[in-house]
């Protein structure tokens, strides 16, 4: 065996270890797009809130307050759905290009490990909405999403871990200063996704 062959042997071992335990068809571009959807959502939310409140930032009537909550919830759901659909489509395309199937052992592992913290967070948000815990909705979104990413990092690119930590920290800060929720939401789900998506795109997609 020549040295070159030995290197090849080791490279193939490393490759198979990685491919067998991590889902690496996750698309960086979909992260960038998700970030853009989130920013657009945040801007729309900003104008809805401003339009419905007086000069001191208070809502002028209770029905307006409820309407605003409905609009904001609809925006959040729309951003989530668009991001998920984009993520699936682009990841399927990337997997296809690599000649791999999207529904395999690693994608199932990733999905299951993301779903537990994420579904918990979703239920928590709905509970907060019903119990007038409005100020804690954005912190809960950021914290549970951050935890989901932190967990996901074991089953896909490990870079995702740091995005998770950033979102958790942002969530905790927002819990102390709830009135800046819209801004930290835009930062955590918009700006950070665009930055991270770009890094992952440059690092892995090309």
């Amino acid at each position: 065996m020549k040295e070159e062959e030995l290197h090849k042997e080791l490279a193939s071992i490393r490759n198979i270890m990685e491919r067998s335990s991590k889902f690496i068809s996750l698309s960086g571009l979909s992260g960038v797009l998700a970030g853009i959807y989130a920013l657009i959502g945040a801007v729309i939310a900003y104008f809805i809130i401003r339009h419905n409140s007086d000069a001191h930032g208070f809502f002028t009537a209770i029905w307006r307050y409820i309407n605003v909550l409905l609009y904001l919830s609809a925006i959040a759901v729309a951003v989530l759905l668009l991001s998920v659909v984009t993520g699936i489509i682009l990841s399927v395309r990337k997997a296809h290009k690599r000649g791999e199937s999207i529904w395999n052992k690693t994608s199932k592992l990733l999905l299951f490990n993301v779903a537990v913290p994420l579904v918990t967070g979703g239920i928590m948000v709905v509970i907060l909405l019903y119990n007038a815990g409005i100020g804690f909705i954005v912190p809960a979104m950021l914290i549970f999403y951050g935890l989901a990413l932190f967990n996901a990092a074991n089953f896909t690119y490990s870079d995702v871990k740091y995005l998770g930590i950033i979102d958790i920290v942002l969530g905790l800060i927002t819990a102390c200063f709830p009135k800046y929720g819209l801004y930290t939401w835009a930062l955590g789900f918009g700006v950070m996704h665009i930055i991270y998506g770009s890094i992952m795109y440059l690092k892995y997609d090309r």
Partner: protein
Amino acid sequence: MKIPFEKLDKAFENRVRLQIMSVLAVNDQYDFNSLKELLAITDGNLASHLKALEKEEYITVNKSFLGRKPNTNYVATQKGKGAFKQHLNTLEQLIKQQKTI
């Protein structure tokens, strides 16, 4: 000191067997179909290599049912993990040795 190539584990001479052990070294367990897809080889080919590793007592087989479908999972034994590690060490030493020549 010269490290002879004979120190490399005979069971891992075959590329597929080495790949199977690589997978089982980083995953608690792996099922037959996922292995087949990952390594892109035929049923018969994979089965014969798994059998060989089983005979060496490097892996164990867990058979169960997922609903009605049979599900066969493979797990690396302590002996198998040790042998794999040893094999990697030898590969590493061989590379080092060739660098110094």
